């Protein structure tokens, strides 16, 4: 399994990657914004994307829309991890093509549950 973690905060990328490593997922690539995220997807296979919403250059919603328009990426599991948790935010993210949603702050167990849920979706 190869994960892509997209977040402009190096702290949040490290937290998510540490959590993935503890869950046994060691193949992880990173990106600091949506545009870099698209570059990473073009560079090699990715099995699950974990992305933030609020990022410079290309935010998470724009990134997901761009991802979904790429050949063969319509069903790539995407987990959004964000502080944007109002009902309207979640609806917007689902319409953009997010598979599942994690609200910050989160526990490692929450990340595990959501990953398991999107992989069996």
């Amino acid at each position: 399994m190869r994960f892509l973690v997209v977040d402009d905060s190096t702290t949040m990328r490290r937290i998510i990657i540490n959590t993935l490593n503890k869950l046994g997922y060691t193949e992880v690539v990173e990106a600091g914004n949506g545009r870099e995220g698209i570059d990473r997807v073009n560079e090699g296979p990715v099995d699950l994307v974990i992305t933030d919403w609020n990022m410079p250059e290309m935010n998470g919603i724009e990134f997901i829309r761009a991802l979904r328009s790429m050949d063969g990426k319509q069903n790539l599991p995407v987990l959004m991890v964000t502080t944007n948790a109002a009902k309207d935010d979640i609806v917007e993210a689902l319409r953009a093509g997010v598979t599942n949603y994690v609200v910050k702050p989160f526990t490692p167990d929450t990340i595990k549950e959501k990953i398991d849920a999107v992989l069996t979706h």
Partner: protein
Amino acid sequence: MASPAPAVDPHSTQPLIETLRACVHDVFGTMVGTTLAEGTPLDGDALRPQSNVVGQIGFGGSSSGLVVFYATFDGARAITRALLGMAPQDEPSTPEVADAIGEIANMIAGSFRTRMATEGDAWAISIPTVTMGSDFYMTALTDGRRTMLPFRMDGHEIFVELVITTKVRRA
């Protein structure tokens, strides 16, 4: 001619303070993995924390103001180590500390925004700004209500301030 700005009703801000307090506990309990001890909230300028690392986020909507997070260098480093899973003897870099505290402020303000949204208040929040140093003074230039929430984490004092600005009623 504009009417004088109405005073912020303490009764209307108390629920905000309680919500913010809960958000701070949630962020530290979940992400930093620690339970904070609480001090007595202080209003106005009664306490200006001796701090070296300050993370600040603005919010606007039915209420407007700031959420400000204060820590010493040692406290901020301890928080950073906990967030990043570093060993106790590791020394996080200045950019790592700034990013970590910015993320803490972001999660506190973001949780605050979400909880207020569930109660019918639609707010937007700004990006966090982090100031670090050893000789600076910070205050919000407002006649609104300011409440400082003191906490303690493993011997480190941290503070979260809620600033609610007044709204000017124009004739």
